[in-house]
């Protein structure tokens, strides 16, 4: 029995070292983000507007139901004047990173290079850049600075010591965006500030009928206007091609 126990310890040690190898910690540079991707999210995607339909399709001033706004946030939302935005050339304030993925539209995702993922949105002709590894320093703009990483299963302090049968596609894309210029969460003047931090998880889901969905879970933290982190989800259906791709300028109303 003692032999069995010592062998078990040996196996556990070896298993641990093997796992370390597999994740690039045992030596050598980690694989490029593109090569390490647990799933392929490139291609054309269309918003399925089944969540927050009213607020995404036909937002009206003062309709901030669901947004955990503090009194200051409500004040800003209630005083929104679309004419002022137009006059100031600020038509794109609702098209920043915290808002763009919920605006009904199509998205084209490509690898800009092995370490950089690009998302183009036809609504407002916006471009988001996800940097794996070090993100460049930059001034605040609508899309901010997005740092990306693949988050594989079994993260956290504890790790399974055996029996991990999660399969090959066990991971998500985590994107953290900061350095944002103030903008709107919805196309009705519901604000976020330059203090906002956006954390997004992208997951890929395949249905048995062949439909493929990209599921986005977003957490927006903004101590300036929100009483608690705002957590929402959206999803996108993969298209075979660019059908419906319709780049259009930002519109306030």
């Amino acid at each position, binding site marked *: 029995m003692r032999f069995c126990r010592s062998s078990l310890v040996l196996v556990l040690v070896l298993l641990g070292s*093997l796992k370390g190898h597999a994740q690039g910690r045992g030596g050598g540079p980690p694989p490029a983000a593109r090569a390490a991707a647990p799933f392929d999210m490139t291609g054309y995607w269309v918003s399925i507007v089944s969540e927050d339909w009213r607020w995404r399709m036909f937002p009206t001033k003062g309709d901030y139901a669901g947004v955990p706004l503090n009194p200051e946030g409500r004040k800003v939302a209630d005083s929104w004047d679309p004419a002022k935005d137009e006059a100031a050339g600020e038509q794109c304030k609702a098209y920043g990173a915290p808002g763009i993925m919920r605006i009904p539209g199509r998205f084209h995702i490509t690898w800009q290079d092995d370490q950089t993922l690009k998302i183009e949105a036809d609504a407002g002709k916006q471009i988001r850049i996800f940097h794996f590894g070090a993100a460049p320093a930059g001034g605040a703009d609508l899309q901010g600075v997005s740092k990306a990483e693949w988050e594989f299963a079994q993260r956290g302090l504890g790790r399974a010591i055996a029996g991990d049968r999660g399969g090959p596609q066990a991971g998500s894309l985590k994107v953290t965006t900061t350095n944002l210029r103030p903008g709107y969460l919805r196309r009705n003047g519901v604000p976020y500030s330059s203090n906002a931090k956006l954390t997004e998880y992208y997951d890929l889901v395949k249905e048995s009928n062949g439909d493929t969905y990209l599921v986005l879970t977003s957490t927006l933290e903004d101590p300036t206007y929100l009483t608690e982190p705002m957590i929402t989800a959206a999803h996108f259906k993969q298209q075979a091609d660019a059908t419906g791709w319709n780049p259009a300028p930002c519109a306030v109303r």
Partner: protein
Amino acid sequence: MKTATFGFAIVIFSVCSAIFLGQAPAPASGIGNPLGPMVSGTDFSGSYRWLNHQDATLFTAAGAIADWGGIPLNDAARLYALSWSASRLTVKQHQCMGYVPPYTWMSPGNHRIWEERDPFTQRLVAIRYWGQIAQVDRTIYMDGRPHPPAYAPHTFAGFSTGKFEGNILTVTTTHIKRGWLRANGAPQSDAATVTEHLIRHGDTVTILAVVNDPVYLSEPMSKTSVLARQPIAPDAWLYACDDSEQIVGRKNDYVPSHLFGQNPFVREYAEKNNVPLLGSFGGRETLYPQFLAAVKDTAAAEAEAKAKMVPSGPPQSSRAPDPTPNDGNIHVFHVGGNVYMLAGDGANIAVQVGPQGALVIDTGAGKLSDQIVAEIGKLSSKPIQFIVNTSFHADHVGGNKKLQTAGADPSLMGSFFSNQFADAGQGATVIGHQNVQTRMQEQKPPWDTPPSDTYLEDRRRKYHNDEAVEIFPMPNAITDGDSIVHFRRSDVIVAGDIFTTTQYPFIDVRNGGSLQGEIRALNFILDRTLYQHDEDGGTWIIPGHGRVTNEWELAEYRDMLVIIRDRVQAMIKNGATLDQVKAARLTADFDVRFGQTAGPWTTDMFVEAVYTSLKNPPQSATAK
């Protein structure tokens, strides 16, 4: 060398594991197969609350009338929803209606998920879910078991199996009752299957649900919901609900609804929120970005919306799969207590077994009678003693002769009656309404083995196989000779063709059937049923055709017939002819579930039966 060492260690580990684990087979635990597949994946255990940062006003039991944007409702579903009245909630069977997946995720109460592991093998046999609102109790089997047959009962939670796909738990659910996509009239049919993908990131669980509903959706409805983990488990998990009298003195054949095109609340939501009416009506086009361009022509959008308020297009047939196993075999299903259902040969057959001979309700079409006798023989070592015919229709009495001949009624042998009838006790005794006997004898040539033991108006009572059995005549419902049977201890009601889950009632006006009698019969049954919890469980009902149900489905069937009656009656009141009534397509919202455009019982035939029996009701249908 490292590889060799590692391989050796694995062998040793396997041997040790076998020593540790390879003991006598573990006894079965309460849930799941203890020796099912070994699976592991993300642990979702914990207490959660639904996050209303999205769809804030659309939690369960909420939602304004005609707030259906983003739901791919088809035309029939939209008509159903436009006809629905919130006052329906005052009807007894609707007061404690449960919620179905995936709508349950949007309930504002507490949610709990936990793992069920076999105590001996520690295999994950199921993932459990409890939702406070409506006390939703789900078991997601992870042990690789198949889903039940199509003729098995449905529940609001449905029957779920799961598997891990990477870091995602994918759950497939079938056998769901008719429920809500949104509790403002937007229906999810009982033919829907739901796939849910659960994704956990830290304390957040995102669920992408995809509803495939051939009856009420024009394309699969996909939608996300978000749960947030609660660090402290709440102490509020119940949802006390009992139905009660809401409006005293109201007749039991009153079901609130709006006639097509006459819902007075249809514009409230759109006007209040500055949404195009066309958008508020939902439909597949509202899901996509291009819908914004489609409604820019406001006049055209308004005209299109108005056209959607009344039926249009060609008549539709049911899109729900037939649960009847038409594979040439008899399928046996244990319903409750001593009662079984045998399906596969025409109308459903019910069998009650016990220390006495088998009591059989209906005998099917007669094509598979030998198999039926054999299957009954497996359920009961005693002969078939009694046969009850709920109808004279051929699919209910076709096996009378073979089943009667195969049985025996020992209660007659050696009794007083045996002196009067030479064949007393030889073969089972066939019981039925007098009109079943009459109709069978009137056929040319007369049909074999009509009931010999008949009744007219009052219930027929028996205490058989240790339980009270009541046979109730249902005058002028499907015919003038229908009966239902209530097994009181088993708490199973055999409804005959009074209730089917597959088609509109086959109201045989020529043989004394009527819509009024049919509605009265359904209400008679509802006066005898109970549910266990929130319209699930309780009294089981074996329909003439289709799957086993409880009172919920029967109440919905009653509601449908009352609503259709009211629509037809309104047109009759305005002097409409039968052709005008047919052309109005007053059943358009139900045709996709119960209608047929061809075959032995078409929607047109049903509408004609409704019209005829409303214009010329049989005397008994109006007497009580």
